[in-house]
């Protein structure tokens, strides 16, 4: 029966993606005279060249971080949606550390990363503390913290670290010691993706192989039960959010250290909200975050490549993305079929007895 269920999930996922793509194709028919070409680039674009594949990897990197961050709090049933602010502020802190700390090779990178994590953790600590201490809605406070992070960050960057010669609103360029170096000469591959994968394993290990992870999951499954069993629920509420904030803090820092080598955002990059999607797609499992992040990144990359090759607005793909997300997570979609499999298997088992 297990096998059958796995098969079912695979078939179902494939079918939903096929349906979503079909819908996407229909939308494209409205948007362009040559939907076939556009469609081809969307599907095939990200794997058509190594350079584009690297683009895909780089795009998945921050999504893995934020997906992990959100998974951690969601596993504890805490609705902290502050990853966006945490990563933004983490990136600002990283910029600060990159620009003002002594340029010791290797060590500098570590310091910058630690700064980003600390800033993200600090940002998450505010809603955490308010929740644990006064039972204030973390949904509201973390959302507010996102806006504060954004405007405060912009203020710091634009008024104190802005590179006036750059022609754009960006910070000074980081010294080389604060870069995440290129790994391939001709391609813009930087170690971000590997750090992200490492963190996925680390987070998985934390959740399932440490006693703090156990505490966190039990609080998520039933807070009253956890308290009753002698778990300090308030502590868990605080540390789970701080750890999540630290992971989120990396998302921004790693990207700017690897891709831009300076702070470039005047809009919030949106990875925090993407992280919610990734986490929910992955059902909050840190290892499943990896494929989920890749799926989302694939759609984005495909869209951009399609846009570059055909001039179609990549926004179309946002609709497609939404449809794919909806159908994949629609539990009852094709459920009659699932029900039949289960019923048949259960009855067969009964008869054997």
């Amino acid at each position: 029966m297990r096998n059958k269920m796995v098969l079912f999930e695979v078939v179902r996922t494939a079918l939903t993606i096929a349906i979503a793509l079909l819908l996407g194709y229909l939308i494209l028919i409205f948007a362009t005279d040559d939907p076939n070409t556009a469609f081809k680039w969307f599907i095939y674009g990200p794997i058509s060249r190594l350079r584009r594949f690297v683009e895909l990897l780089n795009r998945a990197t921050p999504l893995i971080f934020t997906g992990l961050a959100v998974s951690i709090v969601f596993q504890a049933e805490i609705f902290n949606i502050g990853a966006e602010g945490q990563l933004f502020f983490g990136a600002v802190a990283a910029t600060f550390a990159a620009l003002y700390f002594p340029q010791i090779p290797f060590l500098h990178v570590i310091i910058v990363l630690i700064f980003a994590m600390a800033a993200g953790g600090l940002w998450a600590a505010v809603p955490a503390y308010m929740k644990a201490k006064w039972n204030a809605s973390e949904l509201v406070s973390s959302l507010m913290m996102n806006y504060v992070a954004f405007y405060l960050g912009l203020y710091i960057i634009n008024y104190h670290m802005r590179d006036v010669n750059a022609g754009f609103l960006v910070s000074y360029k980081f010294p080389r010691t604060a870069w995440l170096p290129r790994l391939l000469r001709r391609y813009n591959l930087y170690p971000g993706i590997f750090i992200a994968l490492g963190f996925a394993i680390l987070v998985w290990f934390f959740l399932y192989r440490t006693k703090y992870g156990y505490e966190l999951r039990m609080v998520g499954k039933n807070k009253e039960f956890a308290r009753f069993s002698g778990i300090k629920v308030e502590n868990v509420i605080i540390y789970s959010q701080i750890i999540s904030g630290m992971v989120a803090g990396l998302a921004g820092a790693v990207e700017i250290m690897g891709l831009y080598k300076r702070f470039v955002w005047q809009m919030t990059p949106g990875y925090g909200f993407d992280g919610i999607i990734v986490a929910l797609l992955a059902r909050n499992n840190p290892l499943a975050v990896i494929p989920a992040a890749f799926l989302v990144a694939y759609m984005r990359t495909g869209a951009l490549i399609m846009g570059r090759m055909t001039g179609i607005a990549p926004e179309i793909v946002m609709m497609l993305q939404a449809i794919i997300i909806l159908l994949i997570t629609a539990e009852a979609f094709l459920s009659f079929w699932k029900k039949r499999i289960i019923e048949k298997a259960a009855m067969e088992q009964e008869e054997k007895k």
Partner: protein
Amino acid sequence: MNELVHGILSPQFFYSILRVTTPILFAALAALLSDVAGSTNIGIEGMMLMSAFWGVMVSAWTGSAWIGLLAGVTSSVLLSLALAYFYLNLKTDLVLAGIAFNIFSSGATVFLLYLFTGDKGSSSSLKSYVLPKIDIPLIKDIPVVGDILSGHHVLTYIAFISVFVVQYFIYKTPLGLRLRAVGENPDAAQSVGISVKKIRYISMLLSGLMAGFGGAFLSMGYVSWFARDMTNGRGFIGLAAQALGGHSAFGSMWGSLLFGLAEAASYTLQAIRIPSEFTNMLPFIFTIIALAIYARSKLLQIKKIKEEEKKA
């Protein structure tokens, strides 16, 4: 400093509070109507956006702001029903579905805007119409009060009237009772033969209706065009305002006014040349502090009652 005091104490300032509160209040009421029946409508943002878009488009095509409003609200309601379908029939996670709908709306409006106008940023090339402002007889002649309360956009009045209607609806009508029953204990509602699904559909629909008004206000009152992602987080702010106010329409109103006050204040501060990054941040810091004080006082209140009784 003088300038600041002057800015804040002027009738215009209070007038602008009501103006900027309007879309937030609609969003908060939308949040409330879904929340009482036990479902969190994260998709308000997208519904508002959709309504703002169709309001502009249809008013431009038909030349009538009212038909535009109707179209906008209809689009928002349809979206809310679709969300309900995914949530209730296909059993999609409600939060995820809400986020997906927001993404969808953001993409769809830009795509359609481009399709219809050839512009991806805003609808400024179209001539669309706005809904009228209304002077209230008698009140408009009272000094100061008249300046603050009269001459608002028709939807601003509808928003504040809606507060009373919604409150009455939730707490006095049979349907409201059923909504609350489903929100508090769906099994209890089911046990007396109420269809939980149907009630949740209705609550989503009403939520979509409110969101639709909020969106229409943005593009047909607050400004007179559509711009991509013009809701700018107001749907979420509405959710936050409702969370502050609990299950009461008045609570939602006070929460919304708090945000409105902060937003209006930030515009006033900008006028005296404080960096906009700073002034934009203020409403949110303000809210965090308010939330902390509110939550803390609620906690202390409980403790205090306990202690007093111990003494007695």
